[in-house]
């Protein structure tokens, strides 16, 4: 009866297309919004992922990576003294102003790396040499900085511009993940970053730490907190802390959650209603099948097959459309679009849920259907 069920589905062209459109739209909306949401969350913790070290030490009351609560410079040595620390280096992170050639100003996120090791430097260098950060006045720009500070024709390796009225010379152009606030990144050495910034008693933003072999980042973070009373987080924990803060304080979760829920409900409403109509309009035919000897379980399997078939086709088209959107609108990282397999699996399960609930409404109707209906005119 499977082929009969599929023929019933595909043969009723109008309802099939309506079902397909509903489920495709639902899938596309949930995948697209989910991917943008997750992309934004990744951007929100790009300050951590771009640096890529296992343990971050900072003020214990910090909420997220973009919120800097400066420490005393002595914190680096204090952390180095904790057993299990292989190395610990300082990191400066703060928003400063760069002056453009036309006299305008542009906010930049200045990152100061340990000059000796350049630990936390970007791994993808598009032009120049990141090792040249050690030469005087040297800075490295990310691609967003190149765009915002005058474009690729003006901002190249060798170009000189100003940060807080001090000269900066571009020695490398790097590729990193954008930040949630979309402020461009400018990399330099720790000491030079301090010289670019106005005088303050405390300027150390973070201490980046690596555990010795045999010590997990989690264990080391706990030990540092216990022995120094500083805040210590693994990169993963710090990332989640940042995401939690963004979700709690920006309303972005509610916003995207509402859209995703809307996609789910619209999909379910269209699929449920169309399937129910499909069943009601074929009630006499289903009654005839029951009279002929088809039991309710067989009819239920037919309905489920129809529902899941159109669901899987709709899922495929919906994911395809959402991916096309991500590849075109999000080209070159212009949009925070991150389509992950857990999202796709989640949407697939949600879609199966939509199909299951829609089918259940129809199956309930069929289960109560008396085959005697076929004898009523």
């Amino acid at each position, binding site marked *: *009866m499977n*082929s*009969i069920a599929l*023929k*019933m589905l*595909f*043969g*009723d062209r109008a309802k099939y297309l309506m079902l397909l459109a509903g489920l495709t739209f639902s899938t596309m909306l949930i995948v697209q919004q989910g991917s943008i949401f997750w992309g934004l969350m990744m951007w929100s913790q790009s300050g951590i992922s771009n640096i890529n070290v296992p343990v971050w030490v900072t003020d214990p009351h910090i909420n997220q990576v973009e919120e800097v609560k400066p420490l005393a410079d002595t914190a680096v040595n204090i952390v180095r003294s904790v057993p299990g620390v292989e190395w610990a280096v300082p990191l400066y992170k703060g928003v400063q102003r760069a002056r453009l050639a036309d006299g305008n100003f542009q906010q930049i996120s200045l990152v100061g790396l340990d000059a000796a090791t350049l630990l936390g430097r970007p791994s993808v260098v598009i032009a120049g040499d990141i090792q040249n950060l050690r030469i005087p006045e040297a800075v490295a720009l990310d691609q967003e900085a190149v765009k915002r500070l005058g474009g690729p024709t003006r901002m190249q390796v060798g170009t000189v511009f100003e940060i807080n009225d001090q000269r900066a010379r571009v020695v490398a152009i790097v590729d990193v993940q954008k930040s949630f606030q979309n402020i461009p990144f400018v990399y330099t050495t720790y000491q030079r970053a301090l010289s670019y910034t106005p005088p303050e008693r405390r300027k150390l933003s973070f201490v980046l730490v690596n555990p010795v072999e045999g010590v997990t980042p989690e264990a080391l973070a706990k030990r540092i907190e216990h022995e120094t009373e500083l805040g210590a987080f693994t990169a993963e924990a710090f990332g989640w802390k940042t995401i939690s803060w963004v979700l709690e304080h920006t309303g972005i979760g509610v916003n995207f959650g509402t859209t995703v829920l809307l996609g789910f409900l619209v999909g379910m409403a269209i699929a449920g209603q169309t399937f129910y109509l499909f069943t009601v309009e*074929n009630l*006499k*035919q289903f*009654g*005839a*099948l*029951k*009279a*002929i*000897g*088809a*039991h309710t379980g*067989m009819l239920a399997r037919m309905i489920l097959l129809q529902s899941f078939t159109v669901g899987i086709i709709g899922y495929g088209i919906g994911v395809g459309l959402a991916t096309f959107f991500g590849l075109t609108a999000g080209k070159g990282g212009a949009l925070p679009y991150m389509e992950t397999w857990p999202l796709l699996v989640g949407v697939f399960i949600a879609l199966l849920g939509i199909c299951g609930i829609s089918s259940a409404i129809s199956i309930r109707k069929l289960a109560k259907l*008396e*085959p*005697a209906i*076929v*004898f009523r*005119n």
Partner: protein
Amino acid sequence: MPHSASLHDSDTQTLVHVRGITKSFGEGETRISVLNGVDLDVVMGEILLLVGPSGSGKTTLLSVIGGILDADEGEIHIEGQSIANLSPSAKTRFRRDNLGFVFQQYNLLPTLTAGENAAVPLLIRGVPKKPAIAQAADMLTKLGLGERIHAIPSRLSGGEQQRVAIARALVGEPRLLLCDEPTASLDGDTGHKVLEQLQRVGRQSDRAMIIVTHDTRVFEFGDRIVHMDDGVIHMVQRHGDKAP
């Protein structure tokens, strides 16, 4: 005075044996008795017409014999099997394996071809699609629809659709064929032709047919005509008897 349509000939083999069937719908003041103690025997090879005015209980009797409705009282045996004692799923299996149905409104699946529609009972039994369609095509050919096997119902005339429904009812070689007003949606000539084909293809020595009808023009096809009114059989005519 109610009549009994039971048979006592020793050389006939009873296929359907109905005794004391009652059936009512509703409760309390709205209760309506539709069958009030019906006795009926149908023998193998017989075509029995159930006739009577609207509301006389003939379609309800057909539904009860077909195991689609449960009787309140009485017993029904088809080929010795008591229908009343079967569970709902066993009744469904019994209908699948032993009964064929022809409905007034055909009730064909609109997106399936004539061949696929006629093959449905075999597919329900689990016969693979290819042999099922081949068997259905044979049956349709016997009913004069060999050229229309691939047509969907909306491309068929009323008479053709009813013949597809008859093919669907006969394809599983049922022991008992139950037809509810099979000519009611057809004009006189077409209805006559359809019943002619039903009689020609469907009549077999080990099968019986019960046909509910209003149509006096088809009375000639019945071996017996059972007249019902107010839920009882009040007259039984054999073929060739003078009309009342």
